[in-house]
């Protein structure tokens, strides 16, 4: 070969043979291999599961954060700084009489109006006209609503029509009721043309419309809606102040993406002299919501995943070291039949790396499985970022490689003689 020295071809171990020896070493002791891998399996599994669950959860939040919420702004009347109303009465509501029209002038507003729950004395009973002789056994909320508020609620009408501006301005005794209240009072939608009435503590309100549901304000529960001006005439001003549950509020339906801008302008437009009396609640920011979920839980779990990986590395390092000490005889035999120190090191390094990779693969499968099962149980869509998930087994590879380095070096340094004496 033209080489000084022995003139013999140098001993060599091909990559394929190294891999075959490593796999043989693992397969021969499956139980030990499984236990050795456990730390890596847990670490990589936790890593994949945390990232997958976080992504899936964040995806779900964006999904649930629907267009409806994104286009709703609410404004509450917190009351005047100095209550100048005579004792026993409430101050005028903070919103001006033409609040609906003012809001309509703001760019991006689709519909807006004022509403409040009318405070009724204990034991108020709702009953239908004598001809129908029904009585509502359930609790019915009586709400005062401006025409704009009715539009912003987007009620789904079953019969009749929503409360009109004319009815409000002339303080008519009319009402809109929901289908369940209607059936409790024995008012069927078909009877609407005969002008049935609902008596609230003796005051008759002609039912002009029956709705089945609404997108805003009265989305849940039964409610009877009467015009704002009618309510002011019959029951006086509502109690101001957030927390009373009776304060006047404004509900604003906006175009998509306009809610933020509307929130900024509405208070000053409605009440230029005292804008701080009105408390504006814009829709929650979905990006911020996601960020909070990502930031808190994911950070914690990633630290846990890293700790498991570290434990996994220590586990592989320890087992490989024990294997090196246990297999000194084998090292001696291999050296006796021509293996060079690098071949011995390569073999042990390949074994630990293969164990790490296998652990990483199993861990990734388990992690993905957890995300899939969790998402299925929640009826969520699985969101897995391939950029993190696909290379995840390589984390195990790196762990195995690093963990095997020292034991492999120890093995390579073992003198063949000492190895054979030990065996």
């Amino acid at each position, binding site marked *: 070969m033209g080489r000084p*020295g*022995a*003139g*013999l*071809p*140098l*001993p*060599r*171990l091909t990559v394929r*043979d190294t891999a075959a*020896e490593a796999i*043989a070493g693992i397969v*021969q*002791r499956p139980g030990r291999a499984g236990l050795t891998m456990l730390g890596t399996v847990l670490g990589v599994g936790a890593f994949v599961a945390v990232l997958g669950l976080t992504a899936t959860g964040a995806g779900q939040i964006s999904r649930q954060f629907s267009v409806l919420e994104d286009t709703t702004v609410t404004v509450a009347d917190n009351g005047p700084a100095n209550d100048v109303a005579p004792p026993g009465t409430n101050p005028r509501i903070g919103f001006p009489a033409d609040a609906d029209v003012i809001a309509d002038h703001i760019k991006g507003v689709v519909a807006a109006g004022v509403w409040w729950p009318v405070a009724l004395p204990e034991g108020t009973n709702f009953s239908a006209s004598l001809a129908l002789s029904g009585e509502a056994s359930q609790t019915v909320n009586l709400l005062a609503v401006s025409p704009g508020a009715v539009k912003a609620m987007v009620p789904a009408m079953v019969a009749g029509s929503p409360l009109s501006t004319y009815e409000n301005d002339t303080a008519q005794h009319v009402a809109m009721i929901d289908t369940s209240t209607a059936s409790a009072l024995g008012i069927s939608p078909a009877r609407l043309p005969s002008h049935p009435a609902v008596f609230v503590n003796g005051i008759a309100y002609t039912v002009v419309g029956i709705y089945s549901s609404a997108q805003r304000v009265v989305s849940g529960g039964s409610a009877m809606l009467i015009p704002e001006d009618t309510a002011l005439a019959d029951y006086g001003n509502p109690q101001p102040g957030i927390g009373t549950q009776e304060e006047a509020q404004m509900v604003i339906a906006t175009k998509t993406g306009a809610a933020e801008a509307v929130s900024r302008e509405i208070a000053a437009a409605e009440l230029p002299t005292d804008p701080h009396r009105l408390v504006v609640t814009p829709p929650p920011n979905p990006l911020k919501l996601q960020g909070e979920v990502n930031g808190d839980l994911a950070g914690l779990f990633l630290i846990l995943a890293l700790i498991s990986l570290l434990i996994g590395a220590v586990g592989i390092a320890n087992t490989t070291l024990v294997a090196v000490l246990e297999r000194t*005889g*084998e090292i*001696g*035999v*291999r*050296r*006796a*039949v*021509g*293996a*060079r*120190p690098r*071949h011995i090191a390569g073999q042990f390094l390949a074994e630990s790396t293969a164990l790490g990779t296998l652990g990483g693969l199993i861990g990734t499968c388990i992690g993905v499985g957890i995300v899939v099962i969790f998402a299925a149980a929640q009826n969520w869509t699985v969101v897995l970022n391939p950029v993190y998930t696909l290379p995840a087994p390589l984390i195990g590879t790196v762990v195995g490689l690093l963990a095997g380095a020292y034991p492999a070096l120890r093995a390579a340094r073992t003198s*063949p*003689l000492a190895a*054979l004496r030990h*065996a």
Partner: protein
Amino acid sequence: MTAPVIELRGLARTYPGPPPVPALRPADLVIGAGDYVAVTGPSGSGKSTLLHLLGLLDSPTAGSYLLDGLDTSKLPDRDRSALRGRRIGIVFQAFHLLAYRTALENVLLAELYNHTPRSTRLQAAAGALGAVGLGHRLDALPTTLSGGECQRVAIARALVNQPSLLLCDEPTGNLDSRNAASLMELLDQLNSGGLTIVIITHDAAVAAHAGRTVTISDGILSERIRAGHG
């Protein structure tokens, strides 16, 4: 006179102390191709030290060791490894078989580090096992083999690379008398085929098989020349 396979010139090994132990005092020895040499001596006399030096498992502290005319004491580890793999076969008293590998795989291990393709290796390993009479036990694990069979696997492993020198360290030490006799018969046959054999033993019956007997006592090597041989 045949060309020497082994030539020792003042070869010595002293284990560093304190106090330093001169395990092998400067020794000269020439072993020709096809020689059958027994190294005898009491325990601790330096027999194993000599075998380890001959097998290139250890390095001398003085002198030189020529294997096939090549001075091994000046070679780097990679060339010593190459020589171990190609020119020398070693058989140990404790067999040193890998417990989880079959007889065939144990023999294949010796071919792992040379440059032969896998199919050639398989053929050679099966052939070597056939030559020691184990052609029917290729897939047997060492745990299912008798001591004699294990030692035959070890011999097949030592011979699979067709070395010019076979070193045996107490090869019958772990065998009963029947298996020992059968093994010695095998070694005799191999020697008749032209293989150079150096066998370390404290058993006079085993030593009797060899044409030459070298004795070590307190690290000093000496040879009795027998009548009718040489």
